[in-house]
């Protein structure tokens, strides 16, 4: 028993120490396991992107620096609605799960390529390079500036789809992402694009 207790104590100490691994660079990681167990269809991905760069400026998206938009008819919105969300927007029911999240972060927030590849990773698609990113990008003109729009369809038996807008304005990066069942997202895409087109700075 003494030997057993010593082995146990040793194994306990082992778990307290800093581990070190040298690993080859990999593709974007999947969602954390806890998120992955979400019900099928929504595609997870509600976590916020992070921040790259050395000590970015702490900007606040309030007042004149905050984005505003016009909701399509029948759509609802709540401020917040989840960790890190600026707003959560819910379209009317259309035969499948679909949700729009708005996240805003100060600074470049990891950059466009990293975030687009993160979205693609969330629906099981491989990462893009800079050239492929440019060809996948569409543009929407708004009063708050140019918005990059991406539309990706995931693989699998029950297809998921992400349509997302990405814009940098007043020192903040804004992400407006519609995700869910492919058919429902497809049905709501024209209204979502109209929402993107309505983007403006709150002061305007």
């Amino acid at each position, binding site marked *: 028993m003494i030997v057993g207790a010593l082995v146990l104590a040793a194994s306990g100490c082992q778990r307290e120490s800093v581990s070190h691994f040298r690993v080859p660079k990999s593709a974007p990681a999947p969602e954390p396991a806890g998120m992955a*167990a979400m019900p*099928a269809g929504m595609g*997870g991905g509600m976590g*916020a992107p992070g921040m790259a760069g050395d000590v970015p400026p702490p900007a606040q998206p309030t007042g004149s620096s905050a984005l505003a938009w016009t909701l399509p008819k029948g759509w609802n919105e709540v401020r917040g609605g989840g*960790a890190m969300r600026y707003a959560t927007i819910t379209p009317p029911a259309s035969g499948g799960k679909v949700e729009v999240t708005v996240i805003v*972060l100060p600074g470049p927030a990891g950059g466009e390529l990293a975030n687009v590849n*993160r979205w693609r990773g969330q629906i099981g698609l491989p990462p893009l390079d800079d050239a492929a990113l440019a060809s996948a990008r569409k543009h929407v003109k708004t009063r708050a500036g140019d918005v990059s729009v991406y539309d990706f369809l995931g693989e699998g038996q029950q297809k998921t789809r992400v349509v997302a807008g990405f814009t940098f304005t007043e020192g903040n990066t804004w992400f407006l992402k519609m995700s869910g069942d492919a058919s429902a997202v497809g049905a709501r895409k024209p209204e979502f694009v109209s929402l993107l087109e309505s983007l403006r700075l709150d002061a305007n």
Partner: protein
Amino acid sequence: MTRIENRPLRALLGVLTSLKLTIVCMAALMVLVVACTLAQVHLGTWGAVNVYMRSWLVWWDVPGTVLSVPVFPGGALAGAVLAVNLIAAQLKRLELSWKKAGLWIVHAGLILLVIGEFVTGMFQQDMQLAFEEGHTANYVEYPRENELAVIDVTDPAWDEVYGIPETLLARADEVQVPGTPITLKVKRFLKNADLAMRTPNDAPAIATAGVGTSIRVAELPPVTTDDRPNATAAFVEPVAGGRSYGTWLVSALLAAPQQFVYEGRTYQLAMRSRRVYLPYSLTLKDFTHDVYPGTEIPKNFSSLVHLNNPARGESRDVLIYMNQPLRYDGKAFYQASFGKGDTLSILQVVSNPGWLLPYISCVLVTVGLLVHFAITMRRSMRRRAAAAEAHS
């Protein structure tokens, strides 16, 4: 004189070999099973098993104080004493003869069963591997434990990954990251916390760098159920070469890592599930979820996985499905869950050095009973033959 010296030893041996001790241990284990079952309502299965079954003592937090007192033997203690009791009783009572060979084997099997459960309880590691179709993973994660990963991403081909366990962050004021010039000062640790965008009315942020400057952090009580992990967060200040790089918020809710640069080397900070990298990789080629025709009732889940281990020259496909795990390199990969429109597969990865012991014990008990039956039958037949001879 000798008799006096041996008296305590004899008394101890008497206690260790007594049937009363066996009954006390069995009763304690029964009480623990009932208490553990009831406690699952509040603690979840994993938490209750840890508190009652995989502990030496069951502790009670005295209400209104910081005191914690032991109130009952834990499953580990009761099981260990029972194992010692069974071994001692076996050695004392069972005569060493061929006639008793079957019973010796049966008892050895039972003792091995208790030891097997003890080894499993104390040394089994439960991890997870979540990956999507087309993705390759070379690591497994502990779903209920977090770590602060400090990753040197400078090299274009390799990452140097340093994992600081949350238990170390919780009790240390500062952590020197071995192999790097970085010391992390831990300003605050939160086992579970919710994040929200800051508003102008919030108190000043603790974070002075990174995304944390725009985030409000609210401490939450630790999760006690099985369905959600803790969203662990911390405020840490990296110091390297005598320079502070500001105070950063790291949280399991922040999906992408944050980074700073020291002398041309880029270091990322990310709070995430505790990760163990493997010397091989697994690629999910296809996940299949079958249902009974005309219903939504699951019939089968299976993951077609490609195993690639360059060190051993292995490159092969493996089908993992219900009750058919992949056993490889001391780990068993079981199909556990799925998600994201049947494109994501979650494997439970179990590392248990004692996994063979229950099988061996069952074989021993079976063989022992057969041997005992054969010996008894042979003896009985001899008696009958002798009786028949006497009558004739």
